[in-house]
C-alpha cells in the first residue's frame, strides 16, 4: 500500500507530472511530507496540494471490512474457523479451537522443557490428511539450533497415529511434507524468510515453525541490544507477523529465556508511592528468568504459551491470549509428544501467569507412557 505508484492513481495530469519530476513516486514519498513542504517542493498552491493528498490518501488507505464480514470469512472459508487443533483438549478449549491462523503464537520456556517436542507434534498435525483431522499441507520448519530430529518425529507419528503410520508409504509421505531449513546466520535466516513468502501459496504450506527465534542473536550482550536503537530482529518480527496475516496460516515461534537484569523494572513512576504489602511480594522475586526477546516482541505476538517447571512438574500456561483466561495445564513429554496430565486448567490470576519458573525437573523423557 505504501509503495503504490502515484502514476497509477489517476491524478490530474498537471500535478502528476510535477510530482514525478520532483521524484515523488510512491504514496509513501508523498505522505511523508507535510502539505506545506509539498507546496514548497512542488511550487503549487495549497488547494491543489490538498486535493492531491486527499486523493493519494484515499487510494493508499488500506481497505476496510466490517467485523461481521471478517468473521463470516473465517467461519466459512477456514478449517475450524481458523484454528489448528493441538489435540491437547484443555489447551484447545482455552484457545477456542487451537493455534489460530493468521497470527503468531509463541512458545517460551527454558531449555529442554518441551518446546521442540510441541513443534514436532504440531508439524505432524498440519501434515496429516484432512480425514484424520489434519490440514493436509506442507510445513516449513526453520531450525536454527539443529534440534529437529526426524527420527523423533516419526516416532511421535507412529505412537500417536498408528493407524496412519503403519500404512505403506504414509510415513514417507508425511515426513516428505515437512521441509526443514537450517540457516546458520542471521542474514541467511533473513533470506529464508523472504523466500518463504513466495512459496507459501504456491506449495500449499499450512504451517510455519521457527525454532528458535533467538538462537541467531543470542551471542550479543544485552548492552549491545539496548544501545542500538533498533532491535536486531525488529524487521523479522514485523515480517513474520505480516506473513501470518497475509497467508492466513498459523506461525509458531519458540523463544528462549535469559536471566533477568538487575536494572529491569516493573514499576511506573506513579506506583512508587504505594508502599503497601502488595508491592513486596512481586512475582519477580520468584522467577529470575525472562523471555529473551524482550518487550517489543511480546507485544507483537498474539498468543504466548509459557512452558515452565516447578514443584517437580511441568506446566504449559496460556500467558497471553485475547480469547482465553490465564490458565496453566500440567503436562508431560511422552513418546507420542506432549500430553496434558489434566484438561482442567488451573487459573492463575495476575502477572504470575507470565513468570517463567525453572526449578529442576526430570530431564529424562518417560517413553513408557
Amino acid at each position, binding site marked *: *500500500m505504501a509503495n503504490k505508484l502515484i502514476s497509477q492513481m489517476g491524478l490530474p495530469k498537471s500535478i502528476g507530472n510535477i510530482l514525478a519530476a520532483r521524484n515523488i513516486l510512491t504514496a509513501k514519498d508523498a505522505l511523508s511530507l507535510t502539505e506545506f513542504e509539498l507546496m514548497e517542493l512542488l*511550487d503549487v498552491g495549497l488547494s491543489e496540494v490538498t486535493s492531491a493528498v*486527499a486523493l493519494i*490518501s484515499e487510494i493508499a*488507505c*488500506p481497505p476496510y471490512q466490517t*467485523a461481521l464480514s471478517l*468473521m463470516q470469512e473465517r467461519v466459512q472459508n477456514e478449517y475450524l474457523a481458523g484454528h489448528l487443533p493441538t489435540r491437547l483438549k484443555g489447551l484447545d478449549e482455552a484457545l477456542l479451537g487451537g493455534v489460530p491462523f493468521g497470527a503468531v503464537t509463541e512458545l517460551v520456556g527454558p531449555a529442554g522443557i518441551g518446546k521442540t517436542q510441541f513443534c514436532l507434534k504440531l508439524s505432524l498435525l498440519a501434515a496429516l490428511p484432512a480425514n484424520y483431522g489434519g490440514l493436509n499441507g506442507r510445513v516449513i520448519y526453520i531450525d536454527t539450533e539443529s534440534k529437529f530430529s526426524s527420527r523423533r518425529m516419526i516416532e511421535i507419528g507412529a505412537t500417536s497415529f498408528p493407524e496412519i503410520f503403519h500404512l505403506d508409504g504414509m510415513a514417507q509421505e508425511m515426513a516428505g511434507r515437512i521441509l526443514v531449513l537450517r540457516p546458520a546466520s542471521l542474514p541467511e535466516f533473513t533470506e529464508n524468510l523472504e523466500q518463504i513468502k513466495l512459496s507459501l501459496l504456491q506449495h500449499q504450506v499450512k504451517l510455519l515453525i521457527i525454532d528458535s527465534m533467538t538462537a541467531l542473536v543470542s551471542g550479543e550482550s544485552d548492552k549491545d541490544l539496548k544501545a542500538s536503537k533498533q532491535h536486531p530482529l525488529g524487521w523479522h518480527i514485523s515480517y513474520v507477523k505480516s506473513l501470518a496475516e497475509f497467508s492466513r496460516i498459523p506461525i509458531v515461534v519458540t523463544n528462549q529465556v535469559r536471566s533477568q537484569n538487575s536494572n529491569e523494572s516493573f514499576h511506573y513512576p506513579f506506583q512508587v508511592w504505594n508502599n503497601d504489602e502488595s508491592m513486596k511480594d512481586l512475582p519477580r522475586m520468584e522467577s529470575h528468568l525472562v523471555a529473551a526477546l524482550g*518487550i517489543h516482541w511480546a507485544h507483537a505476538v498474539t498468543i*504466548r504459551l509459557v512452558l515452565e517447571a516447578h514443584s517437580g512438574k511441568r506446566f504449559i500456561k496460556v500467558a497471553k491470549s485475547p480469547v482465553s483466561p490465564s490458565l496453566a495445564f500440567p503436562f508431560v513429554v511422552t513418546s507420542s509428544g506432549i500430553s496434558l496430565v489434566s484438561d482442567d486448567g488451573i487459573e492463575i490470576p495476575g502477572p504470575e501467569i507470565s513468570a517463567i519458573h525453572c526449578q529442576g525437573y526430570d530431564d529424562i523423557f518417560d517413553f513408557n507412557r
Partner: protein
Amino acid sequence: MEVSSLPLSPSQRGKLIAAGYTTLSSLSSVSAPDLARDLNISEHEAIEILKVSSQSSKKIDGCHAIVTGAQTAWDMLYEEEFMTRITTSCADLDNILGGGISCKEVTEIGGVPGIGKTQLGIQLAVNVQIPIDYGGLGGKAVYIDTEGSFMVERVFQVAEACIEDMPYNYPQKDFQARKNKMQPENFLANIFYFRVCSYTEQIALINYLDKFVAENKDVVLLNQVTTKFNEGSYQLTLALGDSWSHACTNRIILYWNGNERYAYIDKSPSLQSASAAYSVTGKGIRDAASHCKRVRIM
C-alpha cells in the same frame, strides 16, 4: 497580513513581492488585468490569486467574533455538559473517567502486553453501539489495528455478553421485542476494521477518515493507540514518548497491582489523577472481583 503567508505557490508569492504587493490591502484594490500585467502572468492566474487573497482577508475581518474561530468558555461549558461518553462496562473505571471515555477527546491507553488494552478497545467498540434508550450512544465504531491483535471471535463474545447484560442495567419492558434486532452480528456489522501495516498507511487513513466519516453518518471514532513501554532505568514509560503525549488529551495507563488490573489516569486536563481496578472476564471488561479495593485518589 503579509502576502508571504498566503497559501499560494512559492513562485507566485515571489512574483507578488517582487512587483511590490506585500500586504493584503494592496491586493484588495487592484483589478485582475492590472495584476496580470504587473506580474506578467495570465489573467486567469491573476483572478485565482485575488480569490485566494480575498478569502484570507475575509477570515480576518470576520464580523461574528472578536477573534475568528474562537468560542467563548461559556459556550464550551454548555457543550461539555452534553459531551457524550462511552461506558467501559466497569463502574469504577467509568467513575474516575467522569462517566466513560469522552467522545470529543483523544485518549491514549498504554500498558504492558497482556494487561487488557485490546480488550478495552474491543469493549468500547461494542459499547458505543448500545442504543440510546439503554444509556448508550447508538453509534458505530472505526477500529484501526496496527498490531493485528483484533480477534473476531472475542468481539463476538463481548457483543453477546453486552446484549445479555443490557436489560439488567436498564430494565425496559419491551426488551424482548427489540431482542430480535439486537444480535451480536448487528454489533459486528457496525465495527469498521482497518488494518494498518505501515506509517504511510496510517497517515493515508487519517487523511481519508474525514471523508469516510462524512459518508457514514453517526460514526464515533475509536482509534485505540496501542503503546509499548520501555524498561528504562528503574522506571517504566510509554514508548511513544513525550512528544506524542502532548497530542493526546487524556492518558490512561493500565498496570498490575499485585494480582489485580488497575487503570491510572496519568494525564488529563479535567479529571483527577486516580486509579481504579477492573477485570477482564469472559464477557469483556467488568468490575474488579474484590470490591474492597476500590477507587484510590492520588
